[in-house]
């Protein structure tokens, strides 16, 4: 078929087939992208086109719906006082206090989780990207990280219970009067939470490292620098935005997780310290977070106070949205759409790219 170049303004010499005509053979158009008019497509193709629009609009509608509902409900039930009052056990929604403790719990847990996940994640990523020897071990570690990424948080929480309920780790959690170790504490929950963030930090860091051209490393070696110095002084400083966005995504995961909190933190109403030393006792003690507060106050939980649940969920969503904005900021200008949501491992499935 001969390609006849046609300016965008040139009138189509061909009569447009009407939609009902439904040609049996696809009408071949000798036009490039952006020049063919959709009305001349075969019916099936036009249906596909419309479905695409519908799908895109549906996503927008869903997001808008969620945000709108939470705003309307949140604003109608949220009083500033709720943010500053301790919760209290009560049957009535008006008597059950605010959610100061859950907010503190969320912040504390996120801090612990990230404090663990960020350094470990960066270390693992650097080893995987810059050293990776022996190669077989590196591959095993890679698949290990992938498994953590895929492991449901319920399972992680259960595993955490097994670890921290060991008598030898009793100093990290609460102990009953009889000496039984519950294995529930901020420390235990934070440690498991760090696993949620770990794969995100690892993949963001590796992605950053992969984008640094090899000649940058060579330039540093040529100045007589060791690999370690090159990593510390050249590579890591230049991928700081990637690390930051991985960490922020990780914070989002931690803030949003419920299963680990209800299983490993105990979801008690207040932050309940354990043992004498002030700071340490909170870490060893139990508590709740916004997610567990919402869960327990939903119809499925024990509190069943939907208004409180809405208000807390609104605060939670605001936190998530704020983190989201930070991530969008950090990853603007990245070559990839939604960089961070898809780890570098996924490039394995798009190998034709390079």
């Amino acid at each position, binding site marked *: 078929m001969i390609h006849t170049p046609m300016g965008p303004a040139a009138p189509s010499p061909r009569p447009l087939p009407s939609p009902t005509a439904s040609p049996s053979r696809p009408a071949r158009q000798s036009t490039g992208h952006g020049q063919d008019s959709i009305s001349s497509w075969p019916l099936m*193709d036009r249906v596909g086109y419309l479905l695409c629009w519908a799908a895109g609009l549906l996503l927008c509608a869903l997001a808008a719906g969620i945000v709108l509902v939470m705003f309307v409900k949140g604003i109608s039930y949220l009083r500033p006082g709720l943010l500053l009052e301790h919760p209290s056990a009560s049957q009535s929604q008006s008597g059950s206090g605010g959610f100061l403790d859950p907010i503190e719990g969320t912040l504390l847990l996120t801090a612990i989780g990230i404090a663990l996940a960020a350094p470990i994640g960066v270390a693992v990523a650097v080893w995987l990207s810059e050293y990776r020897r022996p190669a077989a071990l590196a591959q095993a570690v890679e698949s290990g990280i992938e498994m953590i990424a895929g492991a449901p948080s319920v399972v992680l929480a259960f595993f955490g219970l097994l670890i921290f309920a060991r008598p030898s780790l009793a100093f990290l959690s609460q102990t009953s009067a009889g000496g039984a170790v519950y294995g529930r504490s901020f420390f235990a929950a934070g440690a498991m939470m760090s696993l949620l963030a770990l794969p995100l930090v690892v993949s963001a860091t590796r992605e950053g490292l992969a984008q640094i051209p090899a000649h940058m490393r060579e330039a540093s070696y040529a100045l007589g620098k060791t690999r370690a110095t090159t990593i510390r002084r050249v590579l890591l400083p230049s991928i700081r935005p990637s690390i930051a966005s991985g960490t922020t995504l990780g914070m989002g995961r931690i803030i949003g997780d419920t299963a680990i909190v209800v299983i490993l933190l105990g979801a008690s109403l207040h932050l309940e310290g354990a043992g004498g030393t002030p700071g340490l006792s909170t870490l060893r003690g139990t508590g709740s977070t916004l997610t567990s507060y919402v869960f327990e106050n939903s119809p499925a939980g024990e509190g069943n106070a939907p208004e409180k649940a809405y208000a807390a969920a609104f605060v939670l969503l605001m936190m998530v949205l704020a983190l989201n904005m930070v991530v969008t900021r950090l990853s603007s200008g990245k070559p990839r759409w939604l960089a961070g949501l898809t780890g570098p491992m996924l490039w394995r499935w798009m*190998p034709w790219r390079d």
Partner: protein
Amino acid sequence: MLRHSRWQRLNLSAERRAELALGAVSVAVLAFVVAMLVTVFVKAWPSFAHNGYIKWFFPGGDVDQQIKAIVNSPPDPAHYVYHLRAWPLLWDTALTTGIAVVLGLVLSVLSAIFIVEFAPQSMKRILEPVVRLLAAVPSVIFGLIGILLVVPWINQHLISQGRKLSVSYVVQLNGAGLLVASLILMVMIVPIMVAITVNALSAVPNSWTEGSAALGVNRWRTMWRVSVRTARPAIIAGAVLATARALGEAIMLALVGGSRSFPVNLLDGRTALFEPVRPLAATIITYKDNLSVVPLSQTLYAMAAVVLVSTAALSLAAWSVKQPLKRYGIRT
């Protein structure tokens, strides 16, 4: 023979130390994963063993009643009750996940095509934060909206009195169930599929699509026949990851699945959509407060082990998906 001065040797070892330290951290993470696999299984083993291993997965009786019996088992370890036939949980898991993934696949591929090819610039710019937002909303918020808004609405508008009566001898329909659960689950897993698919589609070399367009093939067909086909491994990988995520979702399903375990009966026709579901992960959450009962905790660990193995198997499956690419001579 290499000759180093004393300090030069030390310098080498400093370099080596950095590598060893980083390697040690990585190995520790790996060891942790292995330990997780092993210990969860060890803890779960009595539950499988007492049910005749494979029979654990079989149908037979009401799971809630069986679990109640386990919770109430006598304190003497010799008389622990373990009887469980977990089929209803497995079946519900498969159904909710399957529906969510299939619907999600359609929605995500269509919207990815839209984003890559058809969306006007302004829409494109809106859609990135939209998908990011959907990916970031915590599952408990999805669950809350589901149980407080969607479930009552379905109960009022979609389930007729007659439909409720028709199954009232086995189950109460209140709106919570398969339909809500799998739809919300779909919304939760769509973002990751969209993200992967969009990146895969836009990574298809321009020359390939231009080659197709130069033959006079319209944009839709070019997209469908060339880009989507090329990106198929990535799309499948996305679906596999999404499946893993769906299998592990507990909180949202515990909220909107209806509060009892019930094997959805497809023979009920459309009514089946409204029957309650409780997948494995949600069951674990539901009974979290009884963990101090030893046989129950072992039973729950068995469920956790099944979930863990399925997600791990999915990773392997995703691995094998990329194999066909080798025939293009592509280095992976």
